[in-house]
C-alpha cells in the first residue's frame, strides 16, 4: 500500500525527442513533452496518431528507437517493474476476464498490490458503489454491457491510488450520463490523491472538461501543448459573427459605418455582421431596436473546431 501514501505526490513524466517505430510506421516522431507532477494531461488526435503508443511507452511495453522516456526518475523500458509499482493504467481494450465477477476483478487488484484481506473487502465496496456496480458485484462480467465493463475497468484503475494514472480512452462506450458521472469520480479522485493523470481520448468535450493541459498529436507528431482555454483561444478570431435577417438597408449602412463593426456581408435576406467581441452587445441592441431578426451569434470556436484547425482538418 505504499502507493496509497505516495499518491499525493504525482510523478513528473518527461519525453525527450522520443521516436517509436513499428515496421514501416513511425508511431511517435521526435516527441518532446514534459508533464508536471500532479497535472491532468489530455492527449487528443485522430486514430493512429500515436496516443496509445505514448501510454504503452510510459508502461515500458514499447522501447523507443531513439530519445528517452522518464517517469519520476526511472526509464520505463529499463525498469518496468519500478514504474509499474507507481502507476495504474486503463488500456484499450480494457482487458477484463469474462469468467470473473466484478468483485473478483477488484479482489485480484488488491492481491496484486498486497492489500490485506479486510482492506480489500472495504475498498471493493468503496470503489464499486460510486460506479453503481455494487449490486452486480457477483455477476460474471461476460453478462455485462460494454458501458458497464468500461466502468468496472475504470474502477479497477482507481482501486489503488497511485502517483501516476494512465487512462487510454476512458469514456469509450459510456452513455452521456455515465460519462458525466465518470468525470465527476475522476475529478474527486484527483482532488483526493493528486496523481499525475494522462488521458487519451477522442471525446474532446471530456478532455476539455477534465484536463488541465491538452496535447494534440497527429501522425506521431506533437502539434500543440496548452491549457484548454489557451488552445481554444489560439484559434479564436477576435471577432464575433452576428447573423441577422430582415435587416433594413438603413440599419446595414449604419452598422457598416460603426467603428466596432469589421465588415458586413449581405446575402439576400440575411447578413453576417463581423463585430469586435467586446462590442457584440451594442450591436445586438441596435439590431433588435430596428426590428430585424437575430438568427445566430457565434463568438468563439468550440474545442472541436480548434483542434480540427490545428490538425489542419478545418479551413476557413
Amino acid at each position, binding site marked *: 500500500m505504499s502507493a496509497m501514501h505516495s499518491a499525493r505526490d504525482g510523478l513528473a513524466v518527461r519525453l525527450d525527442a522520443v521516436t517509436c517505430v513499428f515496421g514501416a510506421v513511425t508511431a511517435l516522431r521526435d516527441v518532446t513533452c514534459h508533464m508536471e507532477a500532479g497535472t491532468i494531461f489530455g492527449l487528443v488526435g485522430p486514430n493512429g496518431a500515436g496516443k496509445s503508443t505514448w501510454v504503452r511507452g510510459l*508502461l*515500458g*511495453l514499447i522501447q523507443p528507437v531513439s530519445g528517452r522516456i522518464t517517469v519520476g526518475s526511472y526509464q520505463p523500458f529499463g525498469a*518496468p*517493474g519500478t514504474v*509499474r*509499482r507507481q502507476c495504474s*493504467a486503463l*488500456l484499450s*481494450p*480494457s*482487458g*477484463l*476476464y*469474462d*469468467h*470473473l465477477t466484478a468483485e*473478483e476483478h477488484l479482489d*485480484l*487488484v488488491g*492481491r*496484486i*498490490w*498486497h492489500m490485506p484481506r479486510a482492506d480489500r473487502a472495504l475498498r471493493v465496496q468503496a470503489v464499486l458503489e460510486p460506479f453503481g456496480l455494487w449490486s452486480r458485484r457477483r455477476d*460474471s462480467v461476460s453478462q455485462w454491457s460494454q458501458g458497464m465493463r468500461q466502468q468496472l475497468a475504470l474502477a479497477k484503475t482507481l482501486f489503488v491510488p497511485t502517483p501516476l494514472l494512465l487512462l487510454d480512452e476512458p469514456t469509450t462506450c459510456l452513455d452521456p450520463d455515465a460519462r458525466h458521472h465518470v468525470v465527476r469520480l475522476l475529478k474527486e479522485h484527483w482532488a483526493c490523491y493528486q496523481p499525475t493523470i494522462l488521458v487519451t481520448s477522442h471525446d474532446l468535450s471530456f478532455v476539455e472538461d477534465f484536463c488541465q493541459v491538452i496535447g494534440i498529436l497527429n501522425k506521431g507528431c506533437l502539434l500543440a501543448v496548452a491549457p484548454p482555454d489557451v488552445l481554444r483561444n489560439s484559434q479564436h478570431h477576435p471577432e464575433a459573427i452576428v447573423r441577422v435577417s430582415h435587416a433594413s438597408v438603413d440599419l446595414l449602412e449604419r452598422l457598416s459605418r460603426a467603428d466596432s463593426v469589421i465588415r458586413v456581408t449581405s446575402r439576400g435576406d440575411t447578413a453576417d455582421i463581423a463585430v469586435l467581441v467586446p462590442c457584440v452587445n451594442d450591436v445586438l441592441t441596435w439590431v433588435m431596436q430596428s426590428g430585424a431578426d437575430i438568427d445566430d451569434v457565434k463568438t468563439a470556436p468550440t474545442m472541436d473546431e480548434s483542434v480540427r484547425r490545428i490538425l489542419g482538418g478545418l479551413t476557413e
Partner: protein
Amino acid sequence: MMILNDVCTVYWKEHREWVAAQRSTKSRWVTAGVLVAIVGGVLPYQLHTLWTTSVVSILIAMWVMFFRVTNTIADSIAGERERHTLEALVITPLPPLAIVAGKIAAAVRNTGPTMLVAMGVGLIASNWTRGAAPWHVYSLPVLIGIVLDGGLAGLVAGGVGVLISAHSRTARQAQQTLSILSFLLLIIPSLFTHALHVSLDSFLIPSHPGRLVAVLSLGLIAAAAGLVALISRCARSTGIRV
C-alpha cells in the same frame, strides 16, 4: 517471500477463471472425459497386469500431464494475449516470472485431477480384465512415479508451453505446435529403443522400477530447472511478449 505471494495471486486468478469456465463450457468436460476413457479404459484393458506393475502407467501419466498442461498453458498465455487480458496483467507490479510460475502452477493443479482420475479408472479396468482374480493395486514405485513424475512432467510441460506460446501469434497456433510435440513424445520412445536394438519391454518392465522412477525424476527436475533458467532470462530481457 514477496514473489511467492505474487505467484499465489496469479494462481488464484487462474484457478478462479478455470472453475468458472468449467461451469460454463461443457466441451472441456468432454475432452477430459475422452482422455480418461482412452487412457484409463482402453490401454489398461490391453495391458492387463502390466498396467499396475510396469512403468507404462508412469509414462502414460506423464504424457497425460504433458498433453493437458501444454494445452492449458497455450490458452493461458497466447489465448490471453488474443483476448487482451495478458497485457492488463503484465502492466501490473507483478514480476513476469511470478506471472509465468502462477500460470504453470494453476495448469498443473487444474489438470492433475484428470490424470489421477484416468489412472484410477485404469486400475479398475485393469482389474476387471482379470475376472475373479484377487484385486491388485499399483506397486509402490509405480504409484510414486505416477504422482511425482506426473507432477514434474506437468511442470516441464508448463515451461515448454510458456516458451512456445510466447512465440506464437495465436492460441490456436501454439496449441497445434504443442499437440504435435505431445504426439512426438508418444512415438519417440519406441523409435529410440528400435534404433538402439533394445526391446521396449525390457525398458518398460525393469527389474528395479524404483531406480527408473528415480532416474526419471532427476531428469525431469533437471529439465524443469533448465526451463526455469531459460524463462527467467527471457522474462528479464524482454518481459512477456504482449
